[in-house]
């Protein structure tokens, strides 16, 4: 596969690893690096990259997984909408297994709700066109990478004059949680591997404020093994030289400036929410978006306000368990204050089959990635040939 296989070249990966090791040995210090994005976490485990790094480098798996950080109430709200017989709820495959208080989308689908998996919001729109008698709701999740797709789909719904398509918007933004993590006084962090795909929308330049305000280097990074290894090397070089700059390792894909079309459609369709609840991190100001009032006819929160209100009344009556019930350690893992395997729930009550905490839900979550790919502490072994 072009633009994939080149970045999995074993010899180049090994050469980069050797360079990293040499640099770490020369510096004689520890490096604490956060990869913000769950996609990076996934790649690191899938390709066993941690095993190629010297122990003096600690990778901290950050809050960049839109599924993991979604509070249970939002899942419940989606399911409350899906309970309406007229509704076809559409969602990305990632959302299907995320547990709400009543069960996951997959479980509720098995119990008879019409919930369908889609690859793209455009597919949800198509369902609305071919099912004019039904209400098609798209359960929108994701950072700025995914938000333009939802925005363009809403615009297309308007263009087509569709009246039976709405979006349940849970889009979040990437900079506020990075700030939330950095604002924790307990946190010791040397620098960031910056999310690359989100930067195709917001531009590499968006991370400049992190570099400026916190004096931490950020390397905007691709997702193939060689991309991540090169980004770590670039970060170490800066740190060794006492620098804190923004660099773009992923320049084949990521421009410095924001994508103007995406910026324009995001601004047209969405506005910031005052605050949004992040599972594991708590409430963060200006960290999520909702549809503007001009698009309220495409807003599932408006169209199904009665269902959401009924859900909340019922939820409060039924003792309203705090979402923080068993989530306390998740925030610590998210901020790198605790390793997944140090959590008392890890691998016991909490596993990918029965996730208790947010980070076990998606295969991108730090705990699930750790559980799936690296449960045995092991030394690097040659691959036998």
């Amino acid at each position, binding site marked *: 596969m072009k633009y994939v296989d080149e970045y999995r070249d074993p010899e180049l990966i090994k050469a980069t690893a050797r360079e990293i090791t040499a640099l770490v040995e020369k510096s004689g210090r520890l490096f604490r690096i956060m990869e913000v994005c769950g996609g990076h976490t996934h790649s690191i485990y899938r390709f066993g990259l941690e095993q190629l790094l010297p122990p003096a480098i600690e990778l901290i798996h950050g809050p960049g997984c839109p599924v993991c950080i979604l509070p249970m109430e939002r899942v419940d709200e989606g399911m409350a909408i899906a309970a309406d017989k007229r509704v076809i709820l559409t969602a990305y495959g990632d959302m299907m297994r995320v547990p709400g208080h009543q069960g996951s989308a997959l479980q509720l689908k098995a119990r008879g709700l019409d919930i369908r998996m889609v690859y793209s919001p455009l597919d949800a729109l198509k369902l609305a066109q071919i099912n004019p008698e039904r209400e098609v709701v798209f359960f929108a999740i*994701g950072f700025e*990478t995914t938000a333009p797709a939802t925005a*363009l789909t809403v615009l297309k719904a308007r263009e087509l004059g569709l009246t039976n398509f709405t979006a349940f918007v849970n889009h979040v933004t990437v900079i506020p949680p990075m700030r939330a993590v950095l604002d924790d006084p307990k946190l010791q962090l040397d620098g960031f591997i910056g999310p690359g*795909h989100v930067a*195709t929308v917001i531009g590499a330049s968006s991370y400049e404020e992190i570099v400026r305000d916190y004096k931490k280097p950020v390397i905007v990074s691709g997702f193939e093994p060689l991309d991540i290894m*090169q980004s770590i090397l670039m970060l170490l070089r800066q740190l060794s030289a006492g620098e804190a700059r923004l660099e773009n390792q992923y320049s084949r894909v990521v421009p410095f400036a924001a994508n103007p*079309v995406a910026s324009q459609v995001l601004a047209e369709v969405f506005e910031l929410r005052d605050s949004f609840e992040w599972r594991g991190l708590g409430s963060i100001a200006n960290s999520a978006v909702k549809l503007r009032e001009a698009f309220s006819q495409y807003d599932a929160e408006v169209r199904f306000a009665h269902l959401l209100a009924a859900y909340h009344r019922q939820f409060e009556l039924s003792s309203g368990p705090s979402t923080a019930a068993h989530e306390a350690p998740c925030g610590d893992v998210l901020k790198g204050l605790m390793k997944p395997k140090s959590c008392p729930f890890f691998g016991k009550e909490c596993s990918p089959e029965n996730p208790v905490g947010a980070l076990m839900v998606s295969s991108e979550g730090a705990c699930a990635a750790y559980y799936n790919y690296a449960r045995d502490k092991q030394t690097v072994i040659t691959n036998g040939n």
Partner: protein
Amino acid sequence: MCLAIPGKIESFVDAEERMAVADISGVKRQVSVDLLRREDETLKVGDWVLIHVGFAMSKISESQAKEQLEILTMLGEAQKAMEEIQDLEVC
């Protein structure tokens, strides 16, 4: 956070060239190229784009990709040269 994958634009679906068929290693899917419709660049059949949830997010720059790989290849070669020098010294 976001799974995106390189694909090659194979054809345009509509007259306005807002939807295209992308080929990803023999797998084909219609993608929206709305985000890449800009005055300063035109998308052509044969271009490589990064695809996420059915949308082309970015045009992949061949020259930047080449440059990156060259840097890394040089790194490997420099290491090899160093090793050879060390080997000579040992002998």
